[in-house]
């Protein structure tokens, strides 16, 4: 190009080209003439990491809490992979996940214990609800019945003492040999933790825990829209 370069160019919509070689071709401010970031007005407000506007006086942050989420799912291949994959790729903090059949043929219940903020729990429920095999999902009401099963294998040096502790925690001896004793315990989280503490003095060899499973009390449905006692009755995503 030579000479007045603007002559050879087609007019462009908006005429954005600001040609330093042809003053007056574009009177609009060039980028370098536009107010720099620190020269502009900026609002005072802020949002927190969850995208919630922060009240400048009372800054409210959500604390994470333990929640039991129950999902009624269609028992089809891959459903557990869909749920666990979702939890892992969205970085939800999950303590445990159990799965088992329900009274309805072809339906399973997945029970998850999560440690999340309220918006996080909301997200888990909404994202799970989008999975096609998930029929219904929700947090189990606060006074849910939760229980976990634990198999605990301890050294058999003092069988009588092991038996006594086991009775104290309503445990059941399921295997006893010359070297180890295996005890089955059920209960809620706190009582299980207490029991394990009590068995520690015998020397715990191995332990297997199922993680808690849960049901809502009384006539409250465990998963939203679920109709207790009506085996075979369909529930829908919309409930």
């Amino acid at each position, binding site marked *: 190009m030579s000479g007045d370069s603007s002559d050879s160019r087609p007019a462009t919509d908006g005429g954005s080209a600001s040609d330093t070689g042809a003053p007056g071709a574009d009177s609009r401010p060039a980028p370098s003439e536009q107010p720099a970031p620190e020269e502009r007005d900026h609002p005072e407000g802020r*949002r927190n990491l969850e*995208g919630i506007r922060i009240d400048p006086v009372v800054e409210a942050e959500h604390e994470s809490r333990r929640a039991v989420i129950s999902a009624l799912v269609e028992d089809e291949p891959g459903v557990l992979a869909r749920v666990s994959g979702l939890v892992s790729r969205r970085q939800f903090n999950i303590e445990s996940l159990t799965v088992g059949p329900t009274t309805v043929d072809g339906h399973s219940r997945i029970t998850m214990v999560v440690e999340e903020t309220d918006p996080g729990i909301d997200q888990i429920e909404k994202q799970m609800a989008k999975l096609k095999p998930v029929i219904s999902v929700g947090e189990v009401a606060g006074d849910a019945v939760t229980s976990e099963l634990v198999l605990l294998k301890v050294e058999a040096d003092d069988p009588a003492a092991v038996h006594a502790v086991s009775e104290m925690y309503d445990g059941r001896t399921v295997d006893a040999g010359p070297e180890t004793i295996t005890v089955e315990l059920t209960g809620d989280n706190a009582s299980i933790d207490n029991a394990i503490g009590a068995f520690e003095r015998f020397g715990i060899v191995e332990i297997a825990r199922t993680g808690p499973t849960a049901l809502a009390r009384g006539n409250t449905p465990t998963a939203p829209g679920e109709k207790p006692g009506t085996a075979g009755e369909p529930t829908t995503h919309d409930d």
Partner: protein
Amino acid sequence: MSDTAAQPREDDAEDGDDPTAADADDPVDTDGPAAGSVSTGAESVVAALEAAGAQTAFGVQGGAIMPVYDALYDSSIRHVTMAHEQGASHAADAYGVVAGEPGLCLATSGPGATNLVTGIADADMDSDAMLALTGQVPTEFVGNDAFQETDTVGVTRPITKHNYFANGADSVGDTVGEAFELSRAGRPGPTLVDLPKDVTQAETDETPGPATPPAGTDPDPNADADAVEEAARAIEAAERPVCLFGGGVIKADASDAARTFARTYGIPVTTTMPGIGSFPEDDDLCLSWAGMHGTGYANMAITHTDCLIAVGTRFDDRLTGGIDTFAPEAEVVHVDIDPAEISKNVHADYPLIGDAGRVLDQLTAAVREAPDAEAWRERCAEWKETYPLTYATPDDEPLKPQFVVEAFDEATDDDTIVTTGVGQHQMWASQYWTYSEPRTWVSSHGLGTMGYGVPAAVGARVAADTMGEQDRDVVCFDGDGSFLMTMQELSVAVREDLDITIAVLNNEYIGMVRQWQDAFYEGRHMASDYTWMPEFDKLAEAFGALGLRVDDYDEVAPAVEEGLDYDGPAVIDFHVDPEENVLPMVPSGGANGKFATAEDQL
């Protein structure tokens, strides 16, 4: 459909005017009689696709998918053989964007399926309706690490709306029909059906029934009436309202509703990048798109607004910048069909769950008086004056890429479809082209897939031709790096005689990386220097396309004209200024209102 079924297709048809194009005016009768009789699983698959209204498929043959291809031989569905399965998935994606119908792509098992993955992930991130059909090894070999076996359902589970493993010839047609409908039900997205060869080869006389999405996946399009009223009160009370129209507005065909709403109440409009075209950029109310490389005035408006009316957007981080500084004083009205998007990234004060068009109509009806926003509109207009998109064209510097984009915009009609790869050229194509119609901007947003542009141009061209819109131009802006990733699909454009014009904005860099290296890595150009590029004009000629090269300003207009006039694929290799940067720019995680207009502000 049966009257066209007699016409066999061959991939190397010498006649570029595909007979299906002539049928484009005939509406596809999806409610017509059920699919004709079938004898195999594969025929059932094809019958289901035809019954669902599929007109076009993009794919690559291979062992495990051969039965389905054999069934396509007698089908009304036009099959476009692509050079690579990634191209098939992008072409199907773009076809769907332009046509407003689910795109359809096919591949064989193993590498065929894994090559589709990028395009499926791309469609997933951009909520594009698409169905992928993959061949699979016979059921009895699944799990044995058989030849060309990949756990396709496992691999694609996190990047599909849902995927299926077909487990019988009797049901495979219904499964395919369901997957097709599911891809466009509610929030669109890709679905996949994995088709073991024994299932497609097996005999069946079960013709698929009418295709329906699975129960519970087709949500109520209307938002809760009380929630609409509450949002309407907030909008009436706003002093600094701004609309933010996202890709969901386009997917819901809600551009008219969006225009009516914003114009009725005099509310300035910004869009997201996927929302480009939802609102005319030459409208006085329009502030163009917001985000990392959005306009300064759009970013000022969403920073200072007190009421953000966001429709069909998921508040991607490239839009919001740092969440702490995103629209920090705004009450947020969030309209979305997917409840999980509500308050996922930005808290919604007024969540409205429903179809973008229906909810915008509800809002238009519910708002009683326009917000008192005269002063705010003036302020927005001042920002437009203060922060225009401009660039300098000094005589002693090479051709500027922005100029090329403007020259194409000037030379084409408003209905021209623009596709792009990903990088600097994509940003210039979105900044310096004035979009006024939906489904004219076809790009890879969420996934940011370099190489999207050429196969997307193939898909877009085929879609426009199928709709009987042969007169529309399709222009692909590509970078040299992006072009090199998928340019083999140029062979498809030549074979099918597709009228597309590819403008390579060649700066011999993987330019966006080079820009970031200069800004954030002390100018250390590690692996971003692409001086080893081939001569694209000659390469284009070798493919059988028109190839041109442009180095100077005075060559631009004639080359643009020649490329657009050429009846077939043309590639113009524009050698542009390697040092040009994309501005304005909001640094990653930064405040939108603090966009940099010059490199030294980064």
